[in-house]
């Protein structure tokens, strides 16, 4: 009796619980297909805006000496209209379309573009820590979150996820508002605002100076957020932040996540990371006699 890796995140059904996080390799349908074949349960696209964005000049990403990555790609993306065309032919891959914008109308307009695409869910990026007027600046404004989530929910029948991060207000309030406005699930967390300075040239390394920290360093913080959210709210959670092994993934399930996303780990372990984690989870479930992912979700709260 093989353990079943299928999971449901509220209305979203996935065959496997490990998803590709937004902004990671998420630019072409060919790559999505490859990642799906490699074991990803779903892929989240780069966050799309109404118009194409070039993003920031390089350096936009580098490895931190003590581990992890800092990036300020600046949400470079082809824009929702172009992107929708790129994935129109999609049949097989569960694609979650990530969206950024400043006002509800941005999101409305973008969702229209995908009417002819097979989209598994939308993920609203309310948490990018290094681009002005979108991301965290939206997530930190409860009124705006309310308007955006309500608008999006009225514009589509496809499930909608809100992606949160650690901004300048209590992210739990953002979640509260999103839940009140009808959100279907929460992804936690985005990168954490950070900086690195080169001591020889005495300059910040990123062209944008500030960026977002991802990878192993943020795992204990991300896990805490999932644990906190699941203590406080009855909402499906997708855990994200620093996951690179099956043990990390299981920690997130135990903390209350129904699925997980990863990005930075691909920089270290390449696309094999999906299958490695799937296998590890499966072996763990066998050993522990869990037959479904659900058996694990939130268990750490019960001890």
């Amino acid at each position, binding site marked *: 009796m093989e353990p079943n890796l299928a999971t449901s995140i509220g209305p979203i059904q996935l065959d496997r619980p490990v998803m590709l996080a937004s*902004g*990671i*390799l*998420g*630019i*072409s349908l*060919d*790559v999505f*297909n*490859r990642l799906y074949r490699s074991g990803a349960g779903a892929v989240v696209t*780069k966050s799309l805006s109404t118009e*194409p*964005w*070039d*993003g920031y*000049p*390089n*350096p*936009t*990403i*580098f*490895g*931190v*000496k003590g*581990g992890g*990555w800092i*990036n300020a*790609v600046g949400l*470079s*993306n*082809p*824009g929702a209209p*172009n992107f929708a065309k*790129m994935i129109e032919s999609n049949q097989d891959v569960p694609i979650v379309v990530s969206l950024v914008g400043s006002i509800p109308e941005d999101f409305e307009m973008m969702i229209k573009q995908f009417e002819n695409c097979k989209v598994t869910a939308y993920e609203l990026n309310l948490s990018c820590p290094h681009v002005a007027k979108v991301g965290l600046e939206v997530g930190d404004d409860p009124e705006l979150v309310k308007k955006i989530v309500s608008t999006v929910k009225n514009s589509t029948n496809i499930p909608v996820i809100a992606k949160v991060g650690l901004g300048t207000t209590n992210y739990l309030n953002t979640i509260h508002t999103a839940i009140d406005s009808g959100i279907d699930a929460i992804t936690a967390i985005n990168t954490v605002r950070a900086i690195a300075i*080169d001591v*020889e*040239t005495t*300059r910040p*390394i990123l*062209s944008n100076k500030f960026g977002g920290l991802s990878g192993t360093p943020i795992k204990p913080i991300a896990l805490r957020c999932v644990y906190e959210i699941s203590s406080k709210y009855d909402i499906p959670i997708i855990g994200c932040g620093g996951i690179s092994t099956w043990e990390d993934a299981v920690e997130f399930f135990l903390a209350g996540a129904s699925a997980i996303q990863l*990005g*930075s780990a*691909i*920089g270290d372990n*390449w*696309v094999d990371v999906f299958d490695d984690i799937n296998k590890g989870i499966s072996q763990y479930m066998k050993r522990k006699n869990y037959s479904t992912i659900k058996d694990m979700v939130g268990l750490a709260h019960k001890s």
Partner: protein
Amino acid sequence: MHINHNHPTIVTIEKVIDETPTVRTLVFSDEIMSTVLPGQFAMVWIPGVNELPMSIMISKEFGKAAFTVRKHGPASTGLFNIKVGEQIGIRGPYGNSFDIKEGKLLLVGGGTGLVPMMRLLTFVKPTDDVTLLIGAKSKDEVFFESLANGILENNTHKVIVSTDDGSYGEKGFVTDLVEKLVNDTHFDAVYVCGPEIMMYKTVQSANTKGIFVQASLERMMKCGVGICGSCCVGEDLVCRDGTIFDGHHLSQNKEFGRFHRNKAGILENY
């Protein structure tokens, strides 16, 4: 010491060599970069300017490496203008490397695409018979000819230059020369790096003849490690799966030779 090869290590430029009016080689000390495999690249940070992917050039001196840069847009011009004593940041090495074959070898390089070829030349065996084609627009854009002859001095070898305008060496496109050579002679391997159309045609010529061929691709790069996605060609990520791909693999790629992506990730025709 590279504690984390994904974090920029600062090096000081020790020597600048003018190759042509628009191409310079910048030499620096770095043990790891001095011994990379042919085809590997680094992400080169020009502080205050930009960061660019650059093939890692050889240096004659032990423990040193170099970049050979053509002045083009603001980023490469920033690198081109770095003076002796100034500092740049490098992270890497990144990417795979050419499969080293033996026998009769054809190397084809255009412009700074010659950089990986120079390092590849240092890996040839004494028994190899090596032909190097150097493609350039005109005479003053030709470089590395004597460097290549020097490296190959103990081999049976030919270094053939072709210029589009015929101002030096053979006249015409280097790819026509490739087509002719692979029709005339059996090669055990063909290696190419240069403008995509040059690589596309070279790969086609070799594939048609069933000759082993590898090309080193260029795409927009941000991370260099397979995270950001900006370098994808079809389902391949140039920085991580490549930059070097076999001709057979490339012949199945729908984007190679046809499209590349701009900074926003939109496909554009070549």
